[in-house]
């Protein structure tokens, strides 16, 4: 008796899924998807970029990035049930003294829509978090913060994921993600800032086993008064950490070997956005419980990170003021490395790890202002960003002007400066990212 009931339930469930997809497409959906008869579309851009500034020795102005290239996005669709995207980026030139890889597959996925359920498989980029640019809950896909570009999306990297979404009515959706393979972010410290005698092999990725895969889920709520979400992540942090791999005999001496190892963590996060009179209000918080911090000193310590912001628009001027903070719940003091040859590599790497994960102090507090002004007919976009870390004294200033010469063609020029005292993160990344830049881009 129970079996027919179960079969009926499955049939009803499949019917429920399919009826969502069988509805005829309206004019809006046809227009957005390019019409019923168009099975694919091509878009992308071609660009050239130059970036120059003072180098690691802080004396000479040298090119830091000079490259040309483009991105091609192929969107394919199969009726209303599925679509796919293939996005790859080509670059030729130099960046940070190296030749950037020629071909980078950013995204390649198939998306199946079955009414309120959608399943997406393949290399994807996921962006979480309602705060502006600084998102403690945004940990699903890796990043390359050393990518020289005025476009913030360029630092995002894709990873192979299974990504499912279920819309529960019109106000709630549930998202579940499985990350079967670890792909690391690029550590924002290059070989140039490490002692020259050290050897840095490639990141030691964890074995591709089910045990080593990552999981994430999010419940997203959209109501008239407020939007908010609750999220959970259990997997490897996209940023690996430096680890000391002992000494390797080279010629007649021993060379310290530095490894890059991922570490696991569990993160509970939440974010919200709402309006208060003429102000937009948004916030984000994440609690991180790292695995193995108690027996491996290099692993990031458990912490809480938060961001709270207010945004206000006055005509064509938009301003976002944000306060962000870190609090290391299991804080352990780490001595700053000296500059002498007697510094142990292990001690130095431990300090670099603490720098990368913002854990050199028990708590840190940062204020930032992001202003965008688009006068007239928005042909010119002027953007300024300033940030100051009230605890460590680090600061970042960025100013940028984008001129939309015509539809699709833009010229962008700007200046960026990371500043910090010795043994701070911004002091390390400054020589890599500081400078003047110019980009010419045409979109198609």
């Amino acid at each position: 008796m129970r079996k027919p009931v179960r079969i009926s339930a499955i049939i009803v469930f499949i019917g429920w899924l399919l009826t969502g997809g069988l509805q005829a497409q309206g004019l809006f959906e046809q227009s957005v998807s390019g019409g019923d008869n168009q099975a694919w579309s091509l878009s992308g851009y071609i660009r050239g970029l130059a970036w120059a500034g003072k180098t690691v020795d802080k004396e000479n102005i040298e090119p830091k990035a000079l490259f040309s290239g483009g991105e091609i996005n192929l969107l394919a669709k199969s009726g209303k049930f599925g679509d796919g995207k293939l996005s790859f980026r080509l670059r030729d030139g130099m960046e940070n003294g190296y030749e950037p890889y020629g071909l980078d597959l950013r995204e390649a996925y198939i998306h199946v829509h079955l009414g309120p359920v959608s399943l997406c498989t393949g290399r994807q980029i996921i962006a979480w978090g309602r705060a502006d640019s600084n998102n403690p809950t945004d940990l699903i896909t890796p990043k390359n913060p050393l990518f020289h570009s005025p476009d913030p999306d360029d630092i995002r990297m894709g990873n192979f994921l299974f990504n499912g979404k279920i819309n529960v009515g019109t106000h709630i959706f549930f998202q579940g993600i499985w990350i079967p393979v670890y792909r690391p972010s690029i550590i924002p410290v290059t070989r140039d800032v490490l002692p020259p005698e050290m050897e840095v092999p490639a990141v030691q990725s964890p074995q591709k086993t089910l045990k080593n895969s990552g999981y994430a889920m999010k419940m997203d709520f959209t109501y008239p008064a407020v939007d908010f979400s609750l999220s959970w992540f259990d997997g490897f942090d996209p940023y690996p950490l430096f680890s000391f791999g002992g000494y390797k005999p080279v010629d007649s001496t021993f060379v310290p070997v530095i490894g890059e190892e991922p570490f696991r963590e569990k993160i509970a996060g939440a974010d919200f956005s709402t309006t208060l009179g003429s102000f937009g209000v948004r916030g984000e918080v994440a609690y991180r419980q790292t695995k193995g911090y108690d027996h491996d000193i290099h692993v990031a310590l458990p912490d809480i990170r938060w961001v709270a912001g207010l945004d206000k628009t006055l005509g064509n001027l938009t301003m976002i003021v944000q306060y962000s903070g870190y609090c290391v719940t299991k804080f352990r003091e780490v001595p700053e490395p000296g500059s002498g040859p007697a510094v142990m590599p292990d001690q130095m790497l431990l300090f670099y790890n603490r720098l990368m994960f913002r854990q050199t102090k028990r708590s840190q507090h940062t204020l930032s202002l992001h202003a965008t002004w688009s006068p007239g007919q928005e042909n010119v976009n002027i953007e300024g960003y300033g940030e100051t870390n009230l605890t460590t004294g680090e600061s970042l200033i960025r100013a940028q002007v984008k001129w939309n010469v015509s539809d699709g063609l833009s010229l962008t020029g700007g200046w960026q400066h990371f500043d910090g005292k010795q043994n701070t993160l911004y002091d390390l990344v400054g020589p890599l990212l500081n400078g003047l830049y110019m980009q010419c881009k045409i979109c198609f």
Partner: protein
Amino acid sequence: MIKIRNKNVAVVSIFLMMAVSPLVCGQPTAKTIMRKSREVSRFKGMESVTELHILNNRGGERIRKIAMASLSQPGVEKRIIRFLEPADVKGTGLLIFDYENKNDDMWMYLPALRKVRRIVSSEKGKSFMGSEFSNADMSAPNLDDFTLTLKGEQSVDGMECFVIDMIPVSHELIITYGFARKEVYIGKSDYMLREAHYYDKNGTLVKVLHAKDIQPVSGSGGKSMARWLSMENKINNRTSWLRILQVRYNPDVNASMFTTAYLQKQ
């Protein structure tokens, strides 16, 4: 007795006033006209494709193609807008919940950020995608935000129109809407908006809106829509105009499109 007689006189007077008032007044009030105008331009469900032309004062032109859908539900009109062209703004989307009696809810999706952002609806005076139209021009005004006065009648393109003055009730609303006074011309026979003049705090004419090519929308039960709208800026001599290329009345428009989850769908 006198008391009763007085009471009867009062009742008869009220009855007579009620019966005679339409003859005496002869015209509906400004608020009634505006409500009626809002009603005739509201569709249960509608989808359209529009071309927005943005002209600068040197004759240069930029064109944006937009798909839009709307769904009217009790107390709220939901709208979703998606940019189709040019390539650098393609995929940008806007979701608006336009409430009758409170501030709108608005969300924007920018493909470059890969995120949906809630935006403040009081930014109604802000330019719509760099054009001379403002965000407020893309939705029906909240009538409680204005003091409405019927100023008289005037002919626009051969059509007799009511002339109504709309003055924001507070300084904050002047900033929100981006004008200190608006003069609207509503067709007497069809209650369709034909023209609007926008003034600043000094009484200077800033912008003029023209609505033309008013045609019935097939299947909508006699409702009409202006297929061509232009906004002329008298200060900087720039003009923007939009033409509706396709329109379809669709009372069964897919309700699941009016969600933030759909807004970020590629």
